[in-house]
């Protein structure tokens, strides 16, 4: 054994090799990131963020960017609770709601209170921390599932209260004269006409202005959490996640540490809530339902628990992908590009991917020729591939340019390689889907490369067929299926998330 390898047994070596192959993406991002100091990384993020409104004035795009910034902020907060402290907090969205409603109460005609923004936002952030601390006090004695249940209930109760506190009898409150029951929340109608954020006379009225505020807050929150994580606090959180008992035995007050994480997460959520309310200029109970919770967990888990760049990536994917999928042409493009990327990951050596695609194209054309000679007039136009080419939105004009410059023959091959039968497409699609599933199952068992390639040719063909006749027409279904599939596939290949570190459990 050489000096260099002291204490590295066979298992560790194998493991390191495994890690090396699995963390290419992480290395790519971190390798680049580590060459930049922290302020450089955050500055870069700011620059990229500020570039969005320069690049596009389409309100739809800016709306997406603003949502990403907000979800990323929330994700960073949730990451402190779930990623760093390892607490399954399912009531996180309630703190977001508390922040939003608190903003509504402090900045609207509903209460008649109009505090200056620079006072409101810090105040509400502290309020979030206090409420988080108070809720954590009893519930952090609970572990695992119980904590999840209690916090989930808290989240639901919050929405319920905001919906139903419309006729509250306040006559018992001393020094308060009310005539009859008081409407505290306006129920599902929400509280509306909130003040905009206003800082030193600058009033953020437009979406773009709000987006920039969110971007700046995101960067400040990232800086804050990064500093926390690189201190004794972060070390203790990580230690606690690794082994709570050992952390406690090494002098770390684990219950207090959890409480702190919980409160910090709640404060960040409340802060994000104010930004949300100020931009929407209204708050409704429905803004804080379980869907948002699922999205947020998607953001944190997809990017990799405990990784801040992961949260950013997760937010971009979770928000942008479903938006892109609204557009059937973009969805198709994503589908085909995604399939090819998946193949590239699956097939080694990678040059065989080209061979495979060539074969798929040839098979497609053969089927087309045969089908046309046997049943002329029974083939439909390709619904989505055909329409991919004419017009694209401005943002991906270069793709269209490339396709336009291709020779006619290539374009026609692409348009015609898939034989779509007319008739009961749903039935045909379902049959194709069933065969496809069987083929995928078979393919997943095959180890030998040649056999795998042979199986994958019809699989790819069927995949395209199923997409074209069964999925691409149904927008909402497609989006859901797509997001679900992306998440499932990711969790299979990278259970630790895109940018997370794989954790080791050995005794």
């Amino acid at each position: 054994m050489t000096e260099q390898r002291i204490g590295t047994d066979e298992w560790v070596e194998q493991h390191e090799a495994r890690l090396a192959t699995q963390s290419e993406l992480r290395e790519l991002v971190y390798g680049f990131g580590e060459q930049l100091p922290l302020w450089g990384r955050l500055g870069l993020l700011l620059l990229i963020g500020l570039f969005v409104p320069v690049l596009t004035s389409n309100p739809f795009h800016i709306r997406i960017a603003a949502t990403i910034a907000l979800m990323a902020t929330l994700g960073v907060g949730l990451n402190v609770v779930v990623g760093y402290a390892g607490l399954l907090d399912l009531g996180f969205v309630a703190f977001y709601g508390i922040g939003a409603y608190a903003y509504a109460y402090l900045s609207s005609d509903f209460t008649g209170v109009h505090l200056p923004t620079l006072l409101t936002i810090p105040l509400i952030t502290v309020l979030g921390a206090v409420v988080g601390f108070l809720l954590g006090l009893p519930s952090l004695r609970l572990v695992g599932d119980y904590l999840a249940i209690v916090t989930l209930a808290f989240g639901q109760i919050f929405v319920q209260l905001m919906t139903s506190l419309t006729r509250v009898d306040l006559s018992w409150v001393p020094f308060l004269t009310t005539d009859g029951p008081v409407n505290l929340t306006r129920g599902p109608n929400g509280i509306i006409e909130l003040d905009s954020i206003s800082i030193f006379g600058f009033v953020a009225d437009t979406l773009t202005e709000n987006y920039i505020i969110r971007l700046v807050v995101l960067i400040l929150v990232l800086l804050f959490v990064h500093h926390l994580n690189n201190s004794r606090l972060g070390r203790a959180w990580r230690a606690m996640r690794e082994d709570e008992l050992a952390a406690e035995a090494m002098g770390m007050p684990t219950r207090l540490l959890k409480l702190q994480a919980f409160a910090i997460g709640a404060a960040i959520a409340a802060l994000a809530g104010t930004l949300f309310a100020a931009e929407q200029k209204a708050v409704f109970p429905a803004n804080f339902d379980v869907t948002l919770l699922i999205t947020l967990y998607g953001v944190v888990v997809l990017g990799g628990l405990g990784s801040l760049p992961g949260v950013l990536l997760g937010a971009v994917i979770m928000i942008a992908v479903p938006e892109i999928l609204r557009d059937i042409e973009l969805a198709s493009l994503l589908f085909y590009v995604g399939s090819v990327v998946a193949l590239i990951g699956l097939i080694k050596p990678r040059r065989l991917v080209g061979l495979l695609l060539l074969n798929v194209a040839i098979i497609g054309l053969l089927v087309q020729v045969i089908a046309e000679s046997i049943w002329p007039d029974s083939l439909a136009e390709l619904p989505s591939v055909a329409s991919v080419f004419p017009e694209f939105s401005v943002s991906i004009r270069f793709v269209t340019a490339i396709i336009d410059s291709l020779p006619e023959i290539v374009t026609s091959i692409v348009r015609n390689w898939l034989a779509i039968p007319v008739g009961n497409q749903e039935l045909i699609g379902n049959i194709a889907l069933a065969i496809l599933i069987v083929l995928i199952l078979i393919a997943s068992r095959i180890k030998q490369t040649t056999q795998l390639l042979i199986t994958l040719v019809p699989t790819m063909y069927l995949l395209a067929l199923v997409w074209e006749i069964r999925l691409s027409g149904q927008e909402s279904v497609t989006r859901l299926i797509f997001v679900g599939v992306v998440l499932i596939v990711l969790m299979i290949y990278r259970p630790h998330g895109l940018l997370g570190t794989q954790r080791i459990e050995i005794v």
Partner: protein
Amino acid sequence: MSAQLELKHINKNFGGLRVINDLSFVAQPGQITSLIGPNGAGKTTLLNLISGIYQPDDGDILFDGVSIVGLEPHEITQRGIARTFQTLRLFLNMSIIENVMSASFSRAQMNLIDIVFRTPRFRREEQRLRNEAEEKLGFFGSRLVGYRFDQPAYSLSYANRRRLEIARAMMTNPKILLLDEPAAGMNPNETLEVTALIGQLRDEAGYTIILIEHDMSVVGGISDHVIVLDHGEKIAEGDFEDVVTDERVVEAYLGRKSS
């Protein structure tokens, strides 16, 4: 000489199973007090009681004359009793230096403001703790230093993991070190070395040590005082030579040699 640690009539049951039975003993400062006994005698349970992970059913535990029963484990550690685990409990996915530094949590002189704004005090304190952690790791020769600092703990061999656990316990600045079978799983060479090291911990670092060990060569070499447990009871106590020749001890060991 007043006792550093004193256990008075400790009892502990697990659902009717009596694991510690009216146990009393005293550990003197600056000495190595060894706890020996067959498997299942209750030695680890005793350490868990001292370090606050379990509460005794009755009896009292005095540290420098003050009762520590009912305190939380981290409070006991902060007062100066640190431990290692028989079944290693390292923070495997953290780096070696972080494993050690994490144990200085309660000693770090910094508040939230220092952390968030990276004040000079924060930098000074981080540097001080890092230096201290490197010093503790340096106690084990060159094995855990240099390029090793930033390697994850899981990359260490078994023997090095045991060493890292000791370094981590030292980082809490304890007066008493509780070592639960520190030589378990080591080869004879490593065992010799760890024995010498425990002696050094007493002589150079000045810790009071309570040592649980199966290997009689370790116990015989360095113990100042030996206590023999069987079925949660103290069956003998004294110098190593006196104890190993005691009739009841021989019987306890030979009777259940298989363990």
